[in-house]
Every structure is written in structure tokens, then in C-alpha cells.
């Protein structure tokens, strides 16, 4: 049976898979056109959790790239995970925009430094940033660490540098941050649960 290109697309659009068309003898006489494969068929599916509110909706993230050295993965679609017992595949208007968060032009890409009084950012290497920050922290800690209070009680605290931790970071980051902060004697330390 001969099918024109236009008819062939019409049949496919009706939702009938091309392989069954072939089985029924509907194959076009010659390869007039190839149906575009589903984009997601070539992607990697990764399970994740929505980073916004704490309903904790399951996500499926689809990324292109085969993990070859010079083919970095590129996230091209995010949707709700239908297996997830809470969100059952759905996402809200916030979650529906997640792809635009991942690819936001507001994403930071390199460490930057703003000098005292300056009007601008200048790039800085990670190593220089870490080294300079550690130096500033140590100078402040050594100068202001309180080993004993006025009564001579051991208190071992450092309150002239503080930190706000991120309640959107993972437990693993949170745990590491807590451990480091307390080892330094930090008390001026909170996360968004405070506000």
C-alpha cells in the first residue's frame, strides 16, 4: 500500500506506532521521512527532589550527553516523579519552572571578590579565595576567641564571626557545616528555620 508523506504523518499523529504500521504493511514504499524519535529517549533520567518548599516532591531530571569526556550533561527537562508517594507526578508552578532555575542567567559561575570601597567585582581563583578567607577568619578568631569568661569559667566561644547556613542544602552539607562551625567555637550560627 502506498501512503503519501502527508498521509503517513497523519496516521502517526493519530497515535499509532510506526513499528505496528510496518507490521500491517503500511510501510511507505521508500523512506520518505523519518519520524523524530522522542527527545527523552536519548536522555539520562535522574531522580531528584524539588529544592523549594518541603513537601519534598520527587523529580525526574532528563539530561542530554552520554557522559563521554567531552560531552558534558545538559539538563533539558524536569518533571514530577509519578512513583513518588506524595506528589504522584505533579509539580506546582514553582516546581514547573525548575529548569529555568538550573539555567538561570543569575547563576554564579566563578568566584568573585569585591575590595573595600570598590564599585565592582573582580574574578578571584578558588585557591586565592579560600586562602584569603581562612586568613581573615583565623586573624579574627585568634584576636577575639573567648576561652574563659569574666568569672573564669571555660567557655571556648568565638562570636565575632558568624554564619548563616542554608536550609536548602543537603543533610550532608548541613552536618559538615555544623561540625566545622562548632569546632571553631562558633555560636552566631543559624539557618532559615530562625526566620
Amino acid at each position: 500500500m502506498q501512503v503519501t508523506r502527508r498521509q503517513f504523518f497523519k496516521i502517526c499523529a493519530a497515535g499509532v506506532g510506526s513499528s505496528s504500521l510496518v507490521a500491517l504493511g503500511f510501510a511507505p514504499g521508500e523512506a520518505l521521512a523519518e519520524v523524530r524519535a522522542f527527545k527523552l529517549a536519548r536522555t539520562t533520567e535522574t531522580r531528584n527532589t524539588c529544592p523549594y518548599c518541603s513537601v519534598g516532591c520527587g523529580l525526574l531530571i532528563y539530561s542530554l550527553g552520554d557522559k563521554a569526556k567531552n560531552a558534558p550533561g545538559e539538563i533539558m527537562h524536569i518533571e514530577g516523579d509519578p512513583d513518588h508517594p506524595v506528589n504522584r507526578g505533579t509539580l506546582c508552578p514553582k516546581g514547573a519552572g525548575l529548569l529555568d532555575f538550573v539555567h538561570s542567567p543569575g547563576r554564579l559561575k566563578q568566584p568573585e571578590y569585591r575590595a573595600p570601597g570598590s564599585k565592582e567585582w573582580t574574578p578571584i581563583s578558588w585557591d586565592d579565595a579560600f586562602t584569603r578567607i581562612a586568613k581573615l577568619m583565623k586573624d579574627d578568631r585568634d584576636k577575639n576567641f573567648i576561652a574563659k569568661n569574666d568569672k573564669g569559667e571555660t567557655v571556648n566561644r568565638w562570636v565575632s564571626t558568624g554564619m548563616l547556613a542554608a536550609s536548602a542544602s543537603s543533610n550532608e552539607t548541613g552536618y559538615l557545616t555544623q561540625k566545622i562551625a562548632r569546632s571553631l567555637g562558633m555560636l552566631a550560627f543559624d539557618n532559615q528555620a530562625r526566620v
Partner: protein
Amino acid sequence: MTNHWVDIKNTDLVLIMGGNAAEAHPCGFKWVTEAKAHRKARLIVVDPRFTRSAAVSDYYAPIRAGTDIAFLGGVINYLLSNDKIHHEYVKTYTDFSFLVKDEFAFNDGLYSGYNPEKRSYDKSTWGYQVGADGYVVTDPTLQNPRCVYQMMKAHYARYTPDVVSSICGTPKEAFLKVCEMIAGTATPNKTMTIMYALGWTQHSQGSQNIRTGAMVQLLLGNIGVAGGGMNALRGHSNIQGLTDLGLLSNLLPGYMSLPNDAEQDYKAYVEKRASKPLRPGQLSYWQNYNKFFVSNMKAWWGDAATAENNWCYDWLPKLDKGYDLLQVFENMNQGKVNGYICQGFNPLASAPCKVKVSGSLAKLKYLVIIDPLATETSEFWQNHGEYNDVDPAKIQTEVFRLPSTCFAEEDGSLVSSSRVLQWHWKAAEPPGDAKGDQEIMAGIFLRLRDLYKKGGGAFPDPILNLTWKHRQPESPSPEELAREFSGKALKDVTDPKDPAKVLVKAGEQLNGFAELRDDGSTSCGCWIFSGAWSEKGNLMARRDNSDPYGIGQTLNWAFAWPANRRVLYNRASCDPSGKPYDPTRKLIAWDAASGKWGGADIPDFKPDSPPEDGMNPFIMNPEGVARFFAVGLMAEGPFPEHYEPMESPLANNPMHPKNEMARANPAARVFKEDWASFGKPDQFPYVGTTYRLTEHFHFWTKHARLNAIIQPEQFVEIGEDLAKEKGIKDGDHVRVRSKRGFIVAVAVVTKRVRTLDVEGRKVHTVGMPIHWGFMGLTKNGYITNTLTPFVGDANTQTPEFKAFLVNIEKV
């Protein structure tokens, strides 16, 4: 949440008050829809605005912002005076029959022991009567006027429907209708869930708002049952996890707390927290505190933590006071803080009183920002015109901005509001040179450690000895860290009943916190997470969503703390003999044949304690029961009392019109100079309140194109009466002003914000969504927290964002 998202489908009645789940937690709110559709459950919404949740409710009652305790106090009065309570439950499972100390008193809005200079209480009279045997004295007949039941009844008798209506602005018939609907769940076969969020927490009496809600639920026997509970809808994806891990000024992991200065003695520190039972036969699970503490110290300091040095007790910083966010900005403003690190936190936008926050940041020597996005805080020094009008030349702060990964670019676990730890997987590399948070923290810490190793300095021991057993020291892996907080045996852990029996071999991951020891043989970085990564593997990564009991428990989906339990206090779902109060919603029951508790959930109880032993369900309390009387645990008193917000449209507290000290929360901390920053109703006559929209998440999604398109520009909402009074039309630009500054936005004139009759006059509300700023893809806007007052809840110091005073004018 005491319960969990899916469990909402088991309810008969939903009360949303202090939250707006349909708007802010839409995918969780679907379980309300499910309960309505399949159980014929009904939904009540009590809110200053006719919200998206209200739009799909069965009954909506308006309320003036900041008067929730008056409303709920009225509900308590209704339940007690109409005898709509769950008798057996309150008599057996709460402190109804406990006698209160004779010296305890309440006079015209103040409890015994108030010190007006310090704005705090001496709480020594706030306690139960304790007998010679060390146990609380009770009166099972409930006749003694000092028993908690009688005292509570007398306390709330003042909250009559007329008083409630006059304070809250809720029409009396609407209030009574809500009472009647709530009272219908006092029977064992009906239950109610309460869903709340920042609408209850962000008040100068936020903690007491929540306590009053919990008291209503206890009176009805709705705590511990499927479809019931007190359900905090938390705001960030891992705000529950970071709280659990203790990343708050005064906390250690698993709700252990740091010592204060006076606690020089380690044994006394532990004894104070390891409470002995206050009634015979009770479990008082915190008695195990030392096991959790020692295991925590072993996780942090390994071999350096020994019995001889009290497991490094002195290495922990001690508190001379709380260092919450408001206190730290106050200190910064006074020039006492030199450095600040913001890891995924944007305080310029999310802390109150922008002018104070901005001025404080400018006094820092250095500021470190770790974030995936360019936040307002990172550019607090930059001039962004009218939205951030500062002179960079005058700001001497050194600022570092370090790009971090986002959720899609990392592995790890997050704790949902349901207390479920869910693992997620990395899908792509981060953009440019961005690094993961763990690598960034390690990068700073390892350099600090090197400096201390080479050059010495102030008390280097805790830094030099911090455990750091990572295969890539500069990049600790999520798997290593998860195993560390879940815990392992350092030596063989044996069965206390049979020392020959080894439960866990040295080096193996623990199965749960029951295996923790206080002799240094176990290590565990967060006891309530223990078992999340056992020898069975990473239980947080489990993906079996089967629900064999059909009530939505999915015990093999990920891992819930504690011990994979899904509904807290579930022993209270059974009567004293161990039978479920409602067999159609059975969570657990006592099985005499096996001598164990079991069912659809992990029992929140000693699993082999038979009902006849009389152990009660609230095992974390030394009483074994739930407390209506909070003893000394709350800053402003054992029974919640209505106080006006710090900035109120009323000149006094209608409950105590003659006592100025009881106008606003008497125990709320106010910094000296901030008194002058509070407005009065003659200049600022309208109630301001802030909130969120479904299209945006805080200050992030304005960086996401889709969200910026669907909600592009800052607006405020006002009612039709106020609009008419002020000559404001829909779409006009308006200036909203508080004592602390102003914002300009588009006015939306709407029926959703109504005028209320309060104390014989009209009170208008101005509603303000918070999502704009001067960074991102939306149209630039003013930071809403320019307007909000620098005062917090007396217990948590969570800022009062929900009720303050403003004025409004057409621009």
C-alpha cells in the same frame, strides 16, 4: 509534622490557620483535596485574607493578624464549657489531673515572677506539685482547683465568643460555626488535622500560637492518630533537616543543646537533660541523653574524645546568651561582629528592617557569600538606585562571592516536612567553575586547619582533632558524611541482656539509636537520623512506594526519623488497653500473643511494654503524658495568653486594658534602640502583613524566567473600603510606609482583603507579597522587609513579619 503529607487523606476535618497550603504547598495540599473527595472531609480556613486555601474551603472565617491565641483560646473555652473533649484521652494521656504549685499565679496578664526591667520571668513557681516520692501529685477526680484541668478551664473562661469576636474581628456566628465543626471531632471515630506555617510562627507570640493549636488537638484526642496531628508545613526543602542537625545558635544535632556558661560540670549538664520519670512506670526517653551525646562527640573528635576528658565536653562553645539572627545583627550594628558567612541565605531580603540589616552588613570587615545565585545580600554594597541606595565608596567590607551547585548538581538527602529523609542524585555538572557546598566548606576549613597546624593560635585542639576521614579530604563525599551521621560501632556492641551476643560488629553501621552507647564504643553524628544508612545500605534511597495497609504509610519509601516512624505519638491512637480508638484507621495495636506492639507504623513506644504496665504515650516527656501546662518551658507563661502584636492598631490589650506591661508579649526581647523604631496607630493606622505567592519561592524564582514571566511585578493588596477611603484605584502605584521605611508597588484592590470590626471600630489590612528585590529577572522592586519590625517571638526570636503597622498613599 507529627503526621505526614499523605496521611492528611485520613482526616475528617482540616483546619488551615496560620498557613495557606493551597498557595504555598500545592502538591501537599492535594491530600486535603483527596480527603474532601474520598472521605467527605471538610476544610476550614481561618486567615486575615480570603486565600487560595479559603477559596476551596467549606468554611472561611476572617481574623485580624496577630490574634490567633484569642481565637483558639475561645475554641478551648467552647470545648471545655460544652464538654466536647475526648474524656479518656485527656484524663489518661495528658496532665489534666496534675496539681500545679500553690505559688503559681496569673494577675492581669502577667504570670508570677515577672521582672519588667529584664522583660523576663523567674519561673520557679511555674511547676507541678511534687510529692515526697519524687512524683507529681495528681487528683484523678479532677476536682482540686489546682489541677491543670480546673486551672485551664478558669483561664480560658475569659475568652467568651463576644470577647473573641471583638478582639479578632471575626463575626461571632462565624467563630461559633468553626467551634462547632471542630468540636465534632471530639469523638474517637472523628479526627481533625491542623496545618500551619509561617502565619503562626512569625509573631512575637508565635510559639504560643502553635501551643494553643496543640492544646485544642489534645482536648479532642487528635494527636497520635491517623489523619490528626499538628502539622507544620515547613518552608524550605531541608529546613527540617537543618533543624534536626542543630544548625541553630543553641543546638547540637538531634535536639540536644549546647551548655551555657554556668554548666561547667559535664555530669550536671547531662543530668539536667536526662530527665528522670515524673510519674511511676514512665519511659522518659531523654534518660538516654548521654548515649546520644557521647556518640556525637565520638563522631566529631574520634579518638581525642575520651572518658577522661569528658568526651571533649569543654571543646564545645558555651552560651552566655542566645545568638539568634536578630541578636547577631544587633551585635553587628554595634560593631561587635567582624566576619559573616552566608551559605545559601539572603538576609538583606529575609531579615526584618532592611535599613538596620544593611547598615550592619556595612560594618563588617569581611562577608563571604556561598550561593548558586547572585543574591541581594551579595550586592548590599552596590548602588541599585531607589531599591538599594547606598554609596559603595563608603562601605569598607571585603566581599567574597563563591558559586555553589544547585540541587540538580549534587547527591545527598533532604528531610521533607513529613520527617522523611530522601536521597537525590546528581544529573549534571554545575555551570562554570561552581563547586559543591561540601568542597567549599572543606576548602576553607582545611586551610584554616593548616594555619593552626603550622602557626598555632587560639585553642586549636578542636580544629586539629576534628575527624576528617575522607578519601578525598578536599571533597568529603555525601556518602561518607551520611554514614557518619547515621552512626557506626567503634567496638563490638553487645546485647545488654546477654553480653555474649554481639548486635553490631566493630566497624559496622548501626541499625538505629537503640544501639548507641555512652562508653565511647559507638559514633553517631545525629542520633535521630541513626539507621538511615545501616549495613542494609542507604535506606534514604529506598523507592518502594507500596502501601500494604492502605492508609498511606509507605514504610519502605526512603527513611523517616525517628526509627522510620511515620506518625509520632502513635501509641495515643490506642486506648489504655492497647486497642485502636478507631479500628478503621489503625496505626498500631497491642498484640498479646506476640507480646509486642505492631501494625501499619513503627510503634512510638517501648515495643514490648504491655498496656497493663501503664506506660503512657508521650515517652519524650518525663511525665509520660502531654502537657497543657507548659511548666517552665515557655518564655511568657505556662498557658498561652492573648497579647497584641508589638505594633498593634489598638492602644491596649482588650484582655488587660489597664496593664500596659501586658499590652504586647511581656517576655519579647526588644533591643534598646529599637523601641523608637516601632510605629503608633495614629501615624500608621493599618495592619501590615507579608506572605508568599504560588508562582514564587522566596527570592530565588525571580531568577527563573518562567516564574518571572507569570508573576513579574511587585504589588500589594488592599480591600475596597480602604481603597475608597484613600482614593486608590486598582493598578495605581502606592507607597506603603512603616516607621522603618517605605516601598512602592502596584495596588491590587480586592474583596479578598476585608475590613474587620475590632473593638468597636474598623480595622483595615494591607497585604504584601515578599518576592521582589533588585536582582533577577522580574521587574526590580523594593525589599518588603524594609517595613517589618526588628522583634521576634519570645522563645524562638522568629521575626514578627505577619502583623505590624503601616500607612498607605497613592503615589
